[in-house]
């Protein structure tokens, strides 16, 4: 029963939401909306559960002096500090200050490294002499130049070239990926609905 009940619940919920997606029916609509709102509430609880688990895991690491425990102290302090600021300063704007002057600059700095990482990876590939790496570097340079450089004189050719790259070879590749992903999602959904996969066990 312990195996069958979760499977039955998953099967029924999946079918109801799926049918609600395809069919116009007031009963199914109401049931689908109820389940979706339930999912939202469950997700909120899962968030709290995740926070609780994070605190426990890192508290244990600190207590046992496991490898990397100083980093766990930082995580605990920042988590609890953020929580305290959020709860105490909800109306005072302290949370807003925390977001603007602590979290955003940190994340923006990390995000700014993305361009460097991409360029670094392209150069590494190119230095290895691989054909893929050379193609990637050249195409990346054309797309970047076609996007960023003022389009005048001889540079005017870059924009149509960029448009062609984006709308023909890149589009073909993206379509292939999207079709593959869609088929994979369908297969996974069917496997769960048909009780072949049971990720909830």
């Amino acid at each position, binding site marked *: 029963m312990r195996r069958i009940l979760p499977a039955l619940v998953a099967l029924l919920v999946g079918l109801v939401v799926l049918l609600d997606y395809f069919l116009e029916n007031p009963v199914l609509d109401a049931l689908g909306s109820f389940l979706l709102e339930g999912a939202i509430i469950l997700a909120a609880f899962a968030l709290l559960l995740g926070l609780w*688990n994070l605190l426990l895991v890192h508290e244990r690491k600190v207590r046992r002096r496991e*490898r990397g425990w100083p980093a766990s102290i930082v995580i605990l302090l920042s988590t609890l500090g953020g929580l305290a600021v959020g709860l105490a300063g909800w109306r005072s704007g302290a949370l*807003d200050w925390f977001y603007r002057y602590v979290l955003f600059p940190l994340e923006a700095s990390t995000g700014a490294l993305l361009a460097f990482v991409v360029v670094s990876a392209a150069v590494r590939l190119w230095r290895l002499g691989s054909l893929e790496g050379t193609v990637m570097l050249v195409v990346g340079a054309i797309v970047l130049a076609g996007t960023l450089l003022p389009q005048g004189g001889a540079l005017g050719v870059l924009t149509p070239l960029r*448009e062609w790259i984006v709308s023909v070879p890149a589009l073909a590749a993206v*379509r292939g990926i999207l079709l593959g992903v869609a088929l994979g999602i369908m297969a996974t959904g069917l496997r769960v609905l048909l009780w072949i996969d049971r990720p909830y*066990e």
Partner: protein
Amino acid sequence: MIFCQACGTTNREGSRFCNQCGARLSETADIACPRCGAPNAPDAPHCQKCGLDLARGRNDVWEGPLPRVEVPEEGTPEAPEQPRRRPEGVPLRRRPHGLPPWLDSAEQPEEASSELEAGALLPGEGELALERDEGEWSGEAIPIEPVVGVPYRARERPEQPPTPEEQKAADLFAAVSAEDVFASLQPGAEEEQSERAGRPETWLRVLVALTLLVAVIVPVLLRGGPLSAEGSVPAPVAAAARAIQQVPPGATVLVAFEYDAGLAGDLQPVAEAVIGEFLSRDLHILTVSTQPEGAALAEMALERVLRARGDAGARSRVVNLGYLTGGQAAIRALAVSIPSVIRSDWEGRPLAGNPAVAGLGGAGTLPLVVVLGRDLLAVQAWIEQLGAPFNTPLVAGVPALVEPALVPYQTAGRLQGVVGGLAGAAAFERLAGRPGVGVRSLAAVRAGAWAAGLLAITANIGFALGRLLRRRGP
């Protein structure tokens, strides 16, 4: 890496004896899974029986010795697997609240801790044994960190050798990872560098510093100038502008902030350009986010636009609905009915009575929804849960990197238009006749791109000339 089966130390490939204990190593010998004890190949990424991530063990995450496993000779009957039992003397932990054990695993029995320290148990081993004995938890959640559920099918699939294509890709990735891009900057790293005796490092660093300086100063001095020269408006941006113009005045539109601060540099200009256009057309604006930081970013964008317009009355036409948990389920529920999902705004004020949401049903009935997404998945979620089933017109704002991935959706009619990154924001602002942060930021980025290009060209010419002169020298 090769695991020592005696002490668990990781040793380099090709090692014959353990660095730590001196035991003989065998590259072909099986290693024991720290969780279930099943034998695995030394380089296996996951345990073939329980799916445990053995690669983590090779990175020294597992501390303590690995248990020895007697691998039966071929042809000899395998001994029946002994069920794992709770160690004697270790009391069963009670879970009065009915929570899974990894939630209260912080309360370890002292006996288990002492056994752990003595090396008799692996980290988490005692807990797993207890959990299996209690029979309420499958033991698939690894109580170390983070809690990971092993995919169901992964337990049954035998390990597959990589295909030639996979092996080639893996080799290429390993080679790329090992490549040192800045090796040429390290004095004495190669023979060629030693000839130059550190001089290139100095002038190259000065050149890089000067380039960065120019990239920062030029846009400030020129205030845009030639760097802000107008280019052609990309077709997706023009289509987005047309879709916005078709919204009747006084209607309500929704803007979804589905990105975090890491991409704010690329997407805040898009958000501000779109919101500014909505306000100038007397539209009511709702903002929402299924990303925790999106609500704060929306508030920042709204504040900046309202301050720039100097129109305090416009605030009453804008409602920040805040953060909504639930991912795709939340989007779908929002599409069906906004009031049943969200009852107060970001600051806790009730939505009832707010003119911006008066008489609103679901987001699916809105004349336009703008999704500012950090990646393809974020936009896909809105297309699948709102755009496609409700035929709601969607416009996407994404980083420039993501723009090509959205072209199929635009050609299929699922997206009315796409504003891609800073260049898209600048083009949109020009179309709207209100140059703003997009145009200014694009000038700075263009200056950086020019400077970087010039740096690359100069450095390569210098390098080529240097080699030429050395070859012709005595």
